[in-house]
């Protein structure tokens, strides 16, 4: 159960290179409040590749996407991110115990 949970969560979180880059970007720069286009530029990727990855992280609750006028503004959901990190740690520790 723990192993499956860990695999699913880690797959959702860092299953692709772009997701890992996004998490690294937001963890190092928690004050980012920006558009998908600009975030894509900041990690040297194209918006069309970054957009679906951001959507997955939004579904997980790690990122927040808010419509502001004509723009979608993305930011880190700090409390939810901490929660997910704790969950991940618990799963890893659970896996080690087994």
């Amino acid at each position, binding site marked *: 159960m723990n192993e499956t949970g860990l695999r699913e969560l880690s797959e959702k979180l860092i299953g692709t290179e772009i997701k890992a880059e996004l998490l690294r970007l937001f963890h*190092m*720069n*928690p*004050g*980012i*409040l*920006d*558009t998908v286009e*600009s975030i894509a530029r*900041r990690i040297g990727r194209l918006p069309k590749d970054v957009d679906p990855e951001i959507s997955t992280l939004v579904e997980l609750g790690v990122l927040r996407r808010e419509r*502001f*006028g*004509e*723009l979608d*503004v993305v930011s880190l959901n700090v409390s939810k991110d901490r929660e997910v990190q704790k969950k991940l740690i618990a799963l890893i520790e659970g896996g080690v115990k087994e």
Partner: protein
Amino acid sequence: MRAPTGISELDAMLHGGLMRGDATLVVGSAGTGKTTLALQYLINGATKFNENGLYVTFEQMPAQIYRDAANFGWDIRKLEAEGKLRVVCTSPPVLAQFVESRNPIDPIIAEINAKRIVIDSISHLESFIPASELRGELYRLVSHLKMKELTSVFTAESHEVFGDHLVVTGVGLSFLVDCIILLRIVEVQSSLKKALTVLKIRGSDHDKQLREFEITSQGIKIGVPFKDLEGVLTGTPRRTTEERFAEAFLKAAGKGK
């Protein structure tokens, strides 16, 4: 009512600090210390004057700002954790976005009860907002921050490193702000030095001298005014007439002996 920068010599030049609730433009070419001055204003606000601050950056990533600030002994991450300071990295279209008179940074201003804000740099807005709309958008932003009673500092890049043709900004922002601080690199006796002057403060007198400054391990340190030189702002100062006369007199006196 003043908002001291915490840089004692600058506060003396400003006759006590920036006027509370006003907008200030810090203009200078690349490498003159605009970001350092702006950060120091926020750090001092949070640590010495109980005024929380928000730093808005467009191009520079927060991680780089944390690192550069640490070189001056400023722990921004700690101040962020304490809710005294916040670094926001965004792009000009986001900052220029107003919906029902709300701006995307408004919740952060409210969350930390910010009294000071730095926008670094306004020059980036020029690349994203059509020239015909730029002045109006800047006016809206400056006014929005004033209505929130924030004492704001905008940085702007001046493209002229040297020379006697000085354009403060290309969009007439100088008319929208209440105070202008100019940073310049000047050549004095074959050495490059940094110079600072207060060009204007609306509604207040100020020191009009041009002073040398350095970026030290503790931040900006302002020294004495440039003496016996004129034309320093052009980047190529020359000795004053009095100084040249005195030297010629001494030379002549020496020949006469």
